[in-house]
């Protein structure tokens, strides 16, 4: 992708005053911003041209944000960040996993929002696959719904775990550097350090490896990073 072309963001929110200030903030950071006040306007804008990313309020009048997100995902697999007063604790939030790459609770902190936008855009190359990924007789990943099936039993993955696995799965069999995983897994890399990756990978093994002490899928490359491999072994 052309690194010099400014990234385009479509901002969809029913609060006019927020549209103004947020589009100014994003423009100041070099993004090309288009705005829409409701779902219908958003769909008209999409007909004119696809942005690189959509920033969407979930509670919009006319077209419900969730319905809009589903419609967009059905037409074109554009990355979506949901910006909403609904936080991750809400029952509705589960549904977001299907359609949204990330979500930010309102009121947002702009630096955090910007970090998440950057992270999602960075991941454009390794978008979460929409199908199941079978890695062996005992492990299947369904990252789009944040789940893994280990020996026939489904386990839920946290957003971070599924992001880490997504980054590893996009480079299946290849080494992914710890720094890369840190950047993909955590928006705020000022706070997070390599030990976040180490501990998270250890916890991930507890979840998805049959024998966490003898991993067959999530392998450590000492001093460099990690590899995700398909394995016929039973583990």
């Amino acid at each position: 992708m052309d690194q010099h072309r400014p990234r385009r963001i479509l901002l969809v929110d029913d609060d006019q005053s927020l549209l103004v200030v947020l589009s100014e903030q994003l423009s100041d950071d070099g993004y090309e911003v288009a705005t829409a006040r409701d779902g219908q306007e958003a769909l008209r804008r999409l007909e004119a041209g696809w942005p690189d990313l959509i920033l969407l309020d979930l509670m919009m009048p006319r077209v419900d944000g969730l319905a809009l997100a589903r419609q967009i995902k059905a037409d074109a697999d554009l990355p979506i960040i949901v910006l909403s007063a609904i936080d991750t604790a809400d029952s509705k939030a589960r549904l977001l996993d299907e359609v949204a790459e990330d979500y930010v609770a309102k009121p947002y902190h702009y630096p955090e929002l910007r970090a998440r936008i950057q992270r999602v855009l960075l991941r454009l190359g390794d978008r979460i696959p929409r199908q199941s990924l079978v890695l062996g007789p005992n492990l299947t990943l369904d990252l789009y719904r944040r789940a893994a099936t280990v020996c026939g039993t489904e386990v839920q993955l946290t957003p971070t775990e599924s992001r880490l696995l997504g980054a590893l799965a996009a480079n299946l069999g290849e080494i992914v550097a710890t720094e890369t995983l840190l950047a993909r897994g955590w928006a705020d890399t000022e706070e997070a350090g390599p030990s976040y990756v180490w501990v998270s990978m250890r916890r991930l093994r507890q979840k998805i490896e049959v024998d966490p002490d003898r991993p067959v899928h999530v392998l450590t490359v000492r001093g460099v990073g990690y590899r995700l491999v398909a394995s016929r072994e039973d583990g």
Partner: protein
Amino acid sequence: MAEPTTDPDAADPPRTPALEAPDAPDAPEAPDAPSFEPEPAPASPAPAPPAPPRGYGIGLSFRVLLTAGLIVAAVLPLAAFGGIVVAARLYSDSRIVGPLLIASIVAAAFFGLLAAAVAVAALTAPLRRITTAVERVAAGEPSPPIHLTGDDELARLAESHNRIAAEAARRNRELGALLEAIAGYNPAGGVEALNSRAESDACAIFSLIDCRLRLVDPATVPTEEDIPGDPRPMRADVRAGSDTLGVLTGHLPATRAWERADQDLLDLFASEVGVALRNAELFGQIESQNARLLELDAAKDEFLRGISHNLQTPLTSIRAYVDQLRASSDKAGRDRRLQIVAEQADRLTRLVRQLLTVTRLEAGVLRPDVEVIAVGLRVRRAWEALNAGDVAFELRDEARGWLAVADPDQLDQVLWALLDNAVKYGGRDGKVEVEIRSDDASGRLHVTIADHGPGISDPDRARLFARFTRGAAQASGDGTGLGLYVSRQLLRTMGGELRLEPAREGLGAAFTLSLPGEPPGDEG
């Protein structure tokens, strides 16, 4: 004795009426009691004394048999004796007359006694059967009907026993059906369903032609006249305790007997129905109250959600504009007033979020997305966000390298609430101390947040974690009064806990939160 006998002996025509064995007097009802051919073998075809175990093959009444038996026992030996005397006269041989007379007297006495014993045993058999049957009925056991032939006193006695036993058995069946019906009454079904079920149950249990249960004052339902030949009216008041709820009326077939015991049974049924109806009424009231409360609760949650959203929308704009203003010029960036606007907007945001969290905790929809987090950094950031510049702050991290396993947003809410409390109640020039420790054995992290304020009074300690409570001294303080409640609940959903440390001399309130933790990780 109208019923035909079904006795197997009776169905066996070649067998002559068998005598009851005299040596088996204790088994009068035994159907297979041994029988033998009449031993005294009187040549006369006079009927033998009676009593096959059950019923008679030939229809002779007790009275006839008694008479016949007595005659056999008294007259036959006498006749035989007379015959021998006549024979002795004819031969008039004095040598043999003496011994022959003695022998014949002995023989006559022997046969007489034997015949009497057999007759008595056979005749008392039906009496014994009646006695046994009456005893069984008196003991509450079912008794098979006794079949005696004839129309004498004993047959009538047996018949009346049979009637009493049949009625007792019928009432027993009715009582069983009644208890079964009552046990099946479910208050959740509602009064109307129960009402119609009680009506059909009453018809089934008491074999009524029709039945109606009216929940009205019994005085308003006129008593029907009992006209012989017409279906017989019956009624019972439906009561629950001292209240009369209604009246049960119905009709019996004209031929059915209806006695005191039957009325008692009906009254029992009616009162049990009354209790069940009262339960159903109460249940219905509780149900509807419950539904109303649930509605109100849902409305309250909906209201809180709506208002939170409506509050958050302008707050988002305010916060965004302040950020933009402060970023746009150096002068504005240093403006203390803009800083205060930003802080107060954040504060409002947190309070609104706290309200929302309560509704979610109560709806049980809160589910943490746990991540690994460095708690020390998180505490410091929460402290900085609080911006209590003039309050001293000390953070001692004894668990370096450890990461907590928690939902970052929820942990922030907890830390903010506890630090905010420490500043609010710790006195303006107090000092807030935070200590982080790890417990290797349990794999948990403990964070203690302490202030140097007046501490918490004993009465307050007990209700500190309840909703909408504050320390009495700060009754008029700001905040939602939800901080500690929300914090503890949030921690619990993450597998953690929040507790108040015991009061210590020279120290204010101290709270310790604990969370699952991960020891320092190394690569691999």
